[in-house]
């Protein structure tokens, strides 16, 4: 049984992000891999080490603030789970919060969890639009697509990017990098939501989660023709056909 956790689904679900949980769970179920989705509710006790997959989304400023306050109390527990191989997908606000800090303007610095070596700076205008990124999964290049909408510019320290921007802005609109990979943690600015649009990435996460619980990570193929057509259409819209 895989346990997929959705962190604060009431707060952090700004751009259809719950689709990521839906995709993770469906692609398990379609292969008869037992999976359960656990909603992690604000203020309730949680042990992240009991999860196999954790999704962290983004929210509005106010909601983001509420989540930050609560999650800070679980920092060490989450850090241990990550060291232990917990598979994490963090998008946008969730991604930023795993880093050192978020700097708004010149004055204010909102501390992050500092679990990943990166920081974010507010930019003068929002980076909005369709986005395509080339990532490497199991040594093979895969093009993933999504929609980004963020004013923060993220800069990486000693961590690997998730991929290289083919179209759009990515982490900061300047260095051509998008997202982060660190152990089994995957971060990205791509909404869409990301996983339903990109089944190969989803399957990669499912495999990692299976490996973590000591099961065979090989996955039976599924009929992904609809997803492939949608991906092709999205790439075509970006002139990457």
């Amino acid at each position, binding site marked *: 049984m895989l346990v997929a956790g959705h962190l604060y689904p*009431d707060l952090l*679900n*700004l*751009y*259809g*992000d*719950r*689709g990521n949980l*839906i*995709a993770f769970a*469906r692609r398990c179920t379609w292969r008869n891999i037992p999976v359960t989705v656990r909603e992690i509710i604000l203020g309730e006790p949680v042990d992240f080490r009991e999860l196999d997959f954790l999704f962290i989304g983004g929210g*509005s*400023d*106010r909601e983001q603030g509420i989540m930050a306050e609560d999650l800070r109390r679980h920092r060490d527990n989450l850090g241990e789970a990550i060291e232990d191989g917990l598979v994490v997908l963090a998008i946008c606000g969730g991604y930023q919060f795993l880093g050192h800090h978020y700097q708004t303007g010149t004055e204010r610095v909102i501390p992050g969890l500092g679990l990943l070596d990166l920081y974010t700076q507010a930019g003068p205008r929002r980076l*909005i*639009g*369709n986005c395509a990124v080339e990532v490497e999964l199991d040594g093979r290049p895969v093009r993933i697509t999504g*929609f980004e*909408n963020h004013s923060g510019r993220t800069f990486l320290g000693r961590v690997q990017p998730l991929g290289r921007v083919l179209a759009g802005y990515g982490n900061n609109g300047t260095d051509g990098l998008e997202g982060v990979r660190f152990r089994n943690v995957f971060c990205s600015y791509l*909404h*869409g*939501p990301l996983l*339903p*649009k990109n089944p190969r990435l989803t399957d990669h996460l499912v495999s990692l989660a299976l490996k973590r619980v000591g099961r065979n990570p090989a996955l039976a193929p599924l*009929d992904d023709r*609809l*997803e492939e*057509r*949608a991906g*092709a*259409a*999205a790439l075509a*819209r970006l002139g990457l056909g």
Partner: protein
Amino acid sequence: MDAKLMIAISSGKTAAQCSQLLGHHGSSLPGKVALRLYPGTLRALAARAERGVILVTGTNGKTTTNNMLARVLLEAGYRVICNREGANLISGVTTAFLRKATASGHLEFDWAVLEVDEASVPGVAAEVDPRMVVVTNFFRDQLDRYGELDKTVTLIDDALGRLPQTQLVLNADDPLVAQFGGLASPAVFFGLAPHARVVERRHHTRESRFCPLCGKELNYAFYHYSQLGLFRCPDCGFRRPEPEVEGLQARYLEDGVACTIRRGGRDYPLELPTQGFYNLYNALAAFAAGTLLGVEPERVIESLESYEPATGRLQRFRYRDKPVYLNLVKNPAGFNESLALLRTDGRRKDVFIAVNDNVADGRDISWLWDVDFEVLEELQRNVAGFVCSGLRGEEMAVRLKYAGVALQKIVAEPNLKEAVGRALDGPGVAAYFFATYTALWPVEKVLRSRVTPERGKQHAGSRPSIS
């Protein structure tokens, strides 16, 4: 008359003719031209109202509410100016006045009834000095255009705060709207009493679960849909205001919805000839506004009961023997209500969904994942097939797949004409067409070439003059 205004009016009208020649639909170009030449155009024209200007705003239902109210006033014998749907920014609103003005700038009317885009409320209100503002609801809509919902609501709150004389007509069931009752302006509330369809659980598309006044989580006795329901703040005491106009015993009819409207201790039965539960809210808003403006309640009911939906507001057609419905979808709350129609209609049907991602649709289509398509897992039993089209039709198809719709029931057909034909000729005995904003007219055009409008002609004479 001011020479500058004269020139602005005539240039705007010339632009109107040109844009009609070019075949633009609902263009707001005339207003844009006139405002550029003379920024005071809207103020000057709106000031000519014999009785006043009414603004209708909110995320969902503003077109329908606006058209309903215009019809009520028109049938009560008033001369009414009303803007075209979609032309609801300041330029579109100005265009509505220009259309009715003569080339020499002459313009006479009693009421201007204007639907106004939420973000344009401050700008328009400052120019027209509205006698009344009707607010339907606030849902998440096209986030990439406006930023977050909170900001939109704050913007309108500020604008209304500068209009202490303006009569407000507010949805009591939506905490985001009901909070305006705390402003200095006189307010009348409309709302729905509990009925058979209320839900005790919160929907996935929660727009705002926190008290807009103090930030505490709101308690709900029940929900109508989304955040609309019987709410109360445990902390500061903010709660659903007692509505002066309340819909009781809401229920579905064969091909419509009904309720009893209670106002001032009297009951008025209402049968709306259009499906869609949310249309009751629109009717309640129009009833509250119409009666406040002095129209007899019985006459308001009469007008509402003969109301014809505008393009894509559950517009009805007939194809051979098959009833065909066309409905606009533009945000999760509205789409969920559209899916509720499939539950109400027990017939076997074909379903068509066109999703575009142009600017007017919202370029980010991830809102589709906030729609509860998961209800289709059960409802698909009565659906022969789903045809997905539009610029992002393939992604719509993916959404259905992950909602649990059987793969053999899903077709992605990017060619709109082809796709419409497929749904029309499907094996169902009814067909539902859902389209996002910029897909709506293309779909309607294809539909019109194949089907016959269900009603229409007999009421043509009494339609609000929005053409």
